């Protein structure tokens, strides 16, 4: 018999707020986490702003042993560790344990492990100094570094998996954790994703000419999803984590329940029918959303809020069209739509988990966060859905069901349906 799966813990490291209280305050008030990066000007990047968390690196000493902290350099691992351990304690669990917890696993994703760690390897090897690399490089350069640090710290003994599906990674990690619990393979899964967009990764996107470059002198206005003046996305860094739990298990231990995961789907458009390495095929996106709704056992009319992928590129209008087709809804008969990226940019693999945490907080606290920088909505979007569906200031309202989707390079899609807990 399949199990119901609930969310019992949240943690976040976001460009506009580190820790749940700061992040909640930021998304309620439309606080931007996009900052000017002087180094990017020096490097002659076209886009010179980024979403960077104000992260207290030394503070990690409160999360891991001094021995483990000494020699830790990979920022993505640091963000992921903090978000995951915050979620774990938020769920009412202790960090210290002598025993392996066989009932709990971890699925955490990232796109690129740590190019700073690899830069160190490359320069040492090229300088014939390989002997000076030491023991801590491999664990930080490997993609499973972040899951290894998290599961090792907490003694997690169920499935420990690192997933990677470009910008669909975060939602996919949550979906995978949900499925394992639903089918009875695990009682709890600590899920999420992390990303540190360093200069090398940033530069590679800059060269693709897909980044916003006209607002370098006004960083907070630079990320403009769904607007006429949307001129590309702003890379961001960060992490978020959720504790997913078998409902019965959560009730038995008296855990606080934030929300229920009703279902979800991940698929690919196969890079056919308009899909490519960099663009999602509409048929794949529509199918992914439709399947999520069907598996969640809800009707499209029940969706109150769409937390979109909506990065501030030409793809925004196609995404809205796909949502409209999949939901068979349009005009003013449409859920609220918002894009977290207007405040924090696009944190690649971390986007799905940060946006899922935002979705759950909106249900928990009864509001729809604003789309900032949407002074000039794209008419090609408002031709499909009503202006009222695109809030530019906070809307206080009951939010019972949220659809959250992300679409990644490789034509990979992931969609989740979150609900308030009923009965």
């Amino acid at each position, binding site marked *: 018999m399949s199990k119901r799966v609930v969310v019992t813990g949240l943690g976040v490291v976001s460009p506009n707020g580190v820790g749940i209280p700061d992040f909640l305050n930021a998304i309620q008030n439309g606080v931007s986490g996009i900052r000017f990066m002087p180094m990017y000007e020096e490097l002659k990047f076209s886009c010179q702003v980024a979403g960077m968390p104000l992260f207290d690196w030394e503070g990690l000493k409160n999360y891991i*042993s*001094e*021995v483990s902290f000494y*020699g830790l350099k990979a920022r993505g691992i640091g963000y992921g560790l903090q978000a995951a351990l915050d979620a774990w304690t938020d769920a009412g669990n202790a960090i210290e344990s002598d025993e392996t917890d066989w009932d709990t696993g971890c699925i955490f994703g990232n796109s690129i492990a740590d190019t700073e760690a690899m830069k160190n390897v490359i320069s040492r090897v090229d300088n014939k100094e390989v002997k*000076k690399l*030491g*023991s801590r490089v491999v664990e930080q350069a490997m993609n499973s570094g972040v899951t290894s640090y998290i599961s090792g710290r907490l003694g997690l003994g169920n499935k420990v998996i690192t997933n990677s599906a470009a910008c669909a990674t975060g939602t996919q990690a949550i979906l995978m954790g949900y499925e394992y619990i639903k089918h009875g393979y695990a009682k709890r899964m600590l899920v999420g994703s992390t990303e540190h967009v360093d200069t090398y990764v940033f530069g590679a996107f800059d060269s693709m000419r897909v980044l916003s470059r006209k607002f370098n002198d006004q960083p907070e206005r630079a990320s403009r999803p769904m607007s006429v003046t949307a001129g590309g996305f702003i890379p961001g860094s960060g992490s978020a984590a959720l504790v997913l739990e078998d409902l019965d298990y959560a009730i038995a231990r008296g855990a606080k329940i934030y929300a229920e995961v009703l279902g979800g789907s991940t698929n690919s458009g196969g890079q056919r029918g308009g899909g490519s390495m960099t663009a999602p095929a509409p048929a794949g996106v529509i199918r992914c959303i439709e399947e999520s709704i069907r598996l969640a056992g809800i009707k499209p009319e029940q969706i109150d809020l769409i937390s979109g992928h909506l990065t501030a590129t030409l793809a925004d209008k196609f995404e809205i069209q796909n949502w409209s087709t999949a939901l068979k809804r349009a005009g003013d008969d449409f859920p609220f739509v918002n894009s977290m990226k207007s405040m924090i940019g696009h944190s690649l693999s971390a986007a799905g988990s940060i946006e899922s945490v935002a979705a759950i907080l909106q249900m928990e606290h009864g509001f729809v966060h604003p789309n900032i920088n949407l002074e000039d909505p794209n008419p090609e979007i408002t031709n499909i859905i009503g202006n009222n569906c695109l809030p530019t200031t906070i809307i206080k309202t009951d939010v019972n069901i949220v659809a959250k989707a992300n679409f990644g390079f490789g034509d990979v899609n992931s969609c989740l349906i979150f609900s308030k807990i009923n009965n």
Partner: protein
Amino acid sequence: MTRQEILDELKKVLAPYTADKEALAKVDENTDLIKDLKINSANLVDIIIDAESKYNIEIDYDSADRMTNVGSCIDVISEKMGQGQV
């Protein structure tokens, strides 16, 4: 450098790699790096790299294999510093 001076310096090299500060405070020549200081065996290579840079010496693989307790670390370091046995 006397053996005691090397030992005092070596304690600083070992410090980041052991969580057991009490054991570190009490080290003597017989202290075993893994058994007594609970140092992760993977970190022995980092200790060797740090020692090389601290004393400006090179420690070859065979010598490194001998560095299992504090006394043998001091032997290798003083040898490599060209002081022979002190």
